[in-house]
């Protein structure tokens, strides 16, 4: 790359950030585990018998075993070809609920 703001090569002392484009099997397994944990939280609130609006919305979310792999490991983006990117590229993705995407994508 040529230009005024070239990346410095690692061999010349520059920094290196590499993010794989897809999740490894370990990260996928951990993501499934986290989804199951959130499922158990929603199930505990449902089993308590309390009624509230947020519970209605939470029960509309798909459970981990109902989700296709696409939704578990990728998330909608309007900028990429195929309109999907790895879910690990979303900041704080391990602590957010990202189960649903726009219909058709």
């Amino acid at each position, binding site marked *: 790359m040529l230009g005024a703001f070239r990346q410095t090569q690692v061999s010349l002392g520059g920094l290196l950030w590499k993010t794989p484009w897809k999740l490894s099997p370990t990260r996928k397994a951990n993501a499934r585990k986290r989804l199951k944990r959130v499922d158990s939280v929603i199930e505990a*609130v449902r089993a308590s018998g309390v009624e509230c609006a947020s519970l209605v919305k939470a029960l509309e979310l798909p459970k981990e075993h109902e989700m296709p792999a696409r939704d578990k490991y990728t998330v909608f983006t309007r900028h990429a070809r195929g309109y999907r990117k790895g879910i690990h590229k979303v900041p704080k993705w391990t602590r957010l609920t990202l189960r649903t995407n726009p219909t058709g994508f």
Partner: protein
Amino acid sequence: MWSTRTIPLSLSFRPCTRLLQHAEHRARGFATATTSSASSPSPSPSELEPNTHYRITLRRSAISLPVRYKGTLVALGLHRRMQTVYHRHTPDIAGKILRVKELVQVENVPASAVRNKTEQRRERKAPRGYAVVGSGLELDL
């Protein structure tokens, strides 16, 4: 301390009540009356009580999450990771749990399982390996 006579726990004939409570707690096991767990073979008294409280444990922190999640955790009484609080089954607590559902672990427990902070600390303490049965000052003369 210099006048206290202590004997090993196995030889004591008058263990203190805290040791008895701890032995009972250990014997009961740490099985909680959760609705999603498999039914145990012998029904214990705790399973017959209705579950009236949430046991909420903070497992993931809210560092670098928006203020609304931090505020929800404070409203639930959770200030640090692995802290456990008990709340009654009410719609407002249910709503707070569902807002931070990615960060907490929730179980339904009966009212007899509710513990406040000092009671939880006391249960965490390891028992002494001895029981004090007497003191040199109490010798019959």
